[in-house]
C-alpha cells in the first residue's frame, strides 16, 4: 500500500493494533470511535464472538478530511490476540503502515506480552518487512489497575521494548493515553512521507504491492 497517492490526492494510513489477547486493542478502537465526531468516522466493523473476544479483526475507518489538499483516511485494525489466530494476524498485518503494540501491564501477563511482541516481529519478517523500518509504538495498557497487579512502565519497557520504540502508558477503557498513542504512531508513519518510505517497492509497501 502506498501511503500517499499524489495522483488521487489521498493519504491512506493503515495502522494495526497488535498485542496479546485481552490487552485492550479493541478497547483502544472503541475509545477512539467514541471521540470522533459522527461525520468523521465510518462504521466500526467488529467481528466478535459471543463472549466479546475479537474473532477476526476490528476495523475502524477514520476520515480526517482534507489535509494540505489531501484526503486523509486512517484505517485502524486490531488483530485477534489469541495464539491460534495466527493466520488472521498475518492477513491483517499485510500492508500495514504502522503498528501499535498494546501490551497488558498486568504482571502475570508479561510472558504473553513478550511472546506476542516476538510474534509480531516474526510475522513482519514473514511478509518480507524489516521490523526496523516499520513504525512501531508500544502502549502499556491498564495502567489504571491497582499498583500491586501491574508492573511499572520502566520495568515493562525493559522487558518488552528492546528496540526502544516510542512508548505510552494508557488506560484505554477511560481514555488516557489512547490518543497519545495514536498520535505517536501517526506522526511516525507520516514522517515517512518525506523519507523514502512513501514510494512503492520499499519495505513498507512490499506487503501489498
Amino acid at each position, binding site marked *: 500500500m502506498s501511503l500517499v497517492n*499524489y495522483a488521487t490526492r489521498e493519504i491512506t494510513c493503515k495502522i494495526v493494533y497488535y498485542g496479546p489477547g485481552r490487552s485492550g486493542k479493541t478497547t483502544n478502537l472503541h475509545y477512539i470511535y467514541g471521540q470522533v465526531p459522527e461525520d468523521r468516522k465510518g462504521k466500526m466493523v467488529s467481528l466478535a464472538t459471543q463472549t466479546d473476544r475479537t474473532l477476526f479483526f476490528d476495523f475502524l475507518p477514520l476520515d480526517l478530511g482534507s489535509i494540505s489538499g489531501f484526503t486523509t483516511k486512517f484505517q485502524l485494525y486490531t488483530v485477534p490476540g489469541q495464539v491460534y489466530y495466527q493466520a488472521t494476524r498475518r492477513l491483517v498485518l499485510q500492508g500495514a503502515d504502522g503498528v501499535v503494540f498494546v501490551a497488558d501491564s498486568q504482571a502475570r501477563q508479561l510472558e504473553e506480552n513478550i511472546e506476542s511482541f516476538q510474534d509480531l516481529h516474526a510475522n513482519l519478517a514473514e511478509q518480507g518487512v524489516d521490523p526496523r523500518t516499520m513504525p512501531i509504538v508500544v502502549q502499556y495498557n491498564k495502567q489504571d489497575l491497582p499498583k500491586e497487579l501491574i508492573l511499572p512502565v520502566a520495568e515493562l519497557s525493559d522487558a518488552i521494548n528492546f528496540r526502544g520504540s516510542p512508548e505510552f502508558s494508557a488506560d484505554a477503557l477511560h481514555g488516557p493515553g489512547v490518543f497519545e498513542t495514536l498520535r505517536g504512531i501517526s506522526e511516525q508513519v*507520516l514522517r515517512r512521507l518525506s523519507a523514502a518510505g512513501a514510494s512503492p517497492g520499499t519495505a513498507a509497501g512490499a506487503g501489498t504491492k
Partner: protein
Amino acid sequence: MRVDKRTRFDNYVVGSANRLAVAAAHAVSDAPGAVYNPLFIYSSSGLGKTHLTHAIGNQAMARHPDMAIEYVPLEDFVEQLHAAIATGEMDRFKQRYGRVDVLLIDDMQFLTGRRETQSELLRLLNSLQGSKRQIVMTSDRPPAEIADVDERLIQKLSGGLIVDIGVPDYETRVAILRAKCEEKNVTFEPGVIEELARVEFTNIRELQGALNRLVSAQVTDGTLTPAQVNALVGAPEPAPPGSPTAARQDEFFSFLTDIASAVAAGIEPWKVRVGEAVAFWNGEGFRTRPLERLMQEQKAPENWEALVRGFAQAVEQLKELEQQVSAVDPTLGGTELFRDPERLSEAAAFVERALAGAVPPAGPQAAFARATFEESPSNQMAVRAADAVITEPGHRYNPLFLAGPSGVGKTHLLNAIGNELARRGGASYRVACVGAQLFIDELIAALQDGTIERFRARYRAADALLLDDVQFVGGKERTQDELFHVFNHFHAAGKQLVFASDVPPKQIEGLEERLRSRFEGGLVAELNAPDRTLREKLFTRFLAVANVPVTPELLSYLAERSAASVRELIGTVHRLMAAAEQAGAPLTLPIAKLTLEPANGAATSPPSSVRQAADTFFLDDEKIIWEWPDASGRLVEELR
C-alpha cells in the same frame, strides 16, 4: 406563511443567554432595514429562534402597518421555488418576494446542497438588501458551518449581525416557567417551579414538556410538592463531570491538528504538482505512465517540470492526430493508441498511413520513357525544363507548366518526368501522375462519400504531383479550390508540380486568377508541332520499331511533309504499312506517295497488322481504340 400572533416580545423571556439576540431583534423590528441587515440568529433547537423571529414580525407589523412582512421556513421557500419553476411562474415568485419589506426565513441550515435555492436566495437577498429591506434568518448553526453552501451566499449571510442564543440559565428558566404558568393560568406550591428549573434541560421545549407533565400530574394527583418534581419529570442524569461533548471532541481535534502539521511537513510540493498532472490527464482519459514513474523518484529530478510540460505537449499532439484521423474516418479515432503519450510516434505513423489511404493516387505510366522522347527545336525548351525538374525536383521550375496543342507529346513528357522522378527518388518517393479529369472525378466521389479529407491526404502524401490536361479544371470552382490548396501544400513543402495543358494558363477558360498566377509562377514551356528534324527522327524511330526498312529518299519525303502533331506522324506510319501490306511489297517511295498523296487518299480498311504495329508503338491501352473500323486513319484517339 403568516407571522404567528401568539409569539411576541412580551411573552419572550429575556435572560443572559439571549439578551444580545433580543436587543438586535428589537432594533431590527423598530427600524427594519436600517440596522443589522441581515440579522442572522442561530442556536440549537428549542431555544427560541422561531419565537424571536415571529416577535420581530409582530413588532414590525405593529410599528409599520404599511409594511409587507413575510415569514417563511426555508423548506416552504424551497417548495415554492420548485413549484414556480415547474409551472414556469418564476416571474411571479420573484415578484412576490421582491416586494416584501421584512423577510423572515427560518431554518437556514436546510440550504445544504440546494444549489438552485442558494442561487435564487442570493439573488433575492441582493435585491432586498439593495432596496434597504430587512432580512432576518435563523439556523441551528452559524452560516459558515452550514455545509455545502456557496461561498458568496455565506458571505452574504454573515454580512450583517450574527447572534446566538445560548441555553437559558437557572434564573431564566424560572422566569420562563413562571411566564408559562401565567399563560396557562396554573399555580404551583412554592418551590415546585424552582425545583423544576434546577433540572438542566438543554432546550426550552423540554422544559415546557416537563412543565406540562407537572400540570397534568397536579390535575390528577392534587397539589404537588417540590420533592415530587424530579421523579415526575425523570430529570436527566447529570452529565459526567469534565467531559461535555465539546471537551471530548477536543481530544480528536487536537489529534487532527497534529496530524495536519505532520502531513504538511511530509508532502513534497513537486510530487503534488506531478500528481495534479496525473490526476488531470487521467481524468481526461490519458495514460500517465511516464508521470507515474516520475513520482516514484525519491528526489525531484532536475528536469521534472520539463517532463511534465513535455507530457502535456505529447497529449496535445495526440489530440491533434486523433482529430486529423477522425476527420477522415471517425471510426479510426477513439482508440487506445490516442490515449497513450508513450505511443505518440506509433500514433503519428498510424495517422499518416490512414491519411495516405490504402490506395495512393495513380503514378506515371511506365510506357512513356524519357529515353524515347525525342528532342528538337520545336520542343527543346520544354524538354530542357523537364530535365532540370528531373535533376532537381522542386527547386528549378516549380511548377513546370507544359503547354502545347494536342498530340505534340505533353502527356509523354509529363509521364517521362514522373517516371524519372520515381526512379531517382527510390522506393519511398511517391509520384502522383493523373489526368485532371480523374482528379475531378475522384474529388466528386470524395465529396459524395464524405471522404474529402482522405482525398486531400492521398494527394498531399505524394512527393510530386503531375497533372495532365489541366485545362479541364476551367470553370470547375470546387476543383480549382481543392487544386489551389493542393498546389499551396506542394509548393510550400518544396515538392515538384508539373502541369500539362493544351493551352497556356492565360488561355484556359474559366481558370481562376489565383490558380493562373500560380501556374505561371514557375515556367510555362511550350511544345509546338513537330519540326522537320523531329519528324525525321520520329519517322526513323517508328519505322525501325516496326521493322520496316526505309531508304533515305523515303525518309526525306516523309520528313518534308508537315504534320500538326506526333500522332499524325504515327497515323502516317500506320497507313504506309497497311498500304505496303496490301500491295504485298516492301514500303517504297512510290507506295508512300500513292498512299499519302490526296488523289489516292481513299481510306483502306484496316489490316490485321494494325494491332500489332500499334502495340509496338504504344503500350498505352488508354490511348488506343483497338476495334476501330478504319483504325489506320484515326487509330490513336484520346479517350478523354
